[in-house]
């Protein structure tokens, strides 16, 4: 069984220690730079962003691949759908 937390991505953004709206902004910038079909992960320790990130991914109609809690932070993974 492949490790759920280890979905390989094209780009990983470490936004731990940065707070709202920091991680969300990093995600948006990261997505902009990605080609369609590319995947990225954002690491965030901020509680506000934990809600904002999936909400934004859905609103922007990209593919949300999951939120994986780690030790003291969460890894959010998404694929650029368009």
């Amino acid at each position, binding site marked *: 069984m492949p490790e759920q937390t280890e979905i390989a991505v094209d780009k990983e953004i470490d936004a731990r*220690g*940065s*707070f*709202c*709206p*920091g991680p*969300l*902004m990093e995600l*948006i*910038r990261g997505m*902009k730079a990605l080609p369609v079909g590319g995947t990225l992960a954002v690491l965030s320790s901020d509680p506000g962003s934990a809600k*904002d990130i999936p*909400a*934004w991914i859905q*609103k*922007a109609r990209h593919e949300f691949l999951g939120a994986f809690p780690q030790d003291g932070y969460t890894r959010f993974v998404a694929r650029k759908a368009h």
Partner: protein
Amino acid sequence: MEERMSLIVFSGTVDKLMAASILTTGAAAMGMEVEVFLTTWGLEAFRKDSYKTNMRVSKDFEDYGPVMMEQMMAKKVPSWMDNFKGAKEVGEVKIYACSMTMELFGMKLEDMEPIVDDITGVATFVERAKEGRITLFI
């Protein structure tokens, strides 16, 4: 109704500019059009280079000023000006200078930070704000 947030920024203290900038960023990130109208002290805060030395905090909380600034530096929190610039990058954000204040303070568009797009009057603000979903006064 338009997916737009109109914000009047009247205040020129770092604490309030911070709030205004985060609201702008949040709305822009969520795909809303944001129009910021700078007036009085808000406009003064956008005078070229002013943000580099602006350490003002609301009078009622001026004793918190130094602590707040220190915490922001220690936690590497982006400044309010960084937030406004970031907001422009991720979404549709327009920043307008109130023409009355410009006249009063003897300012021209060239005296303002480049992030200020244009000068408008109150009627424009009212027209734009009434079609939008969110209007705020800071």
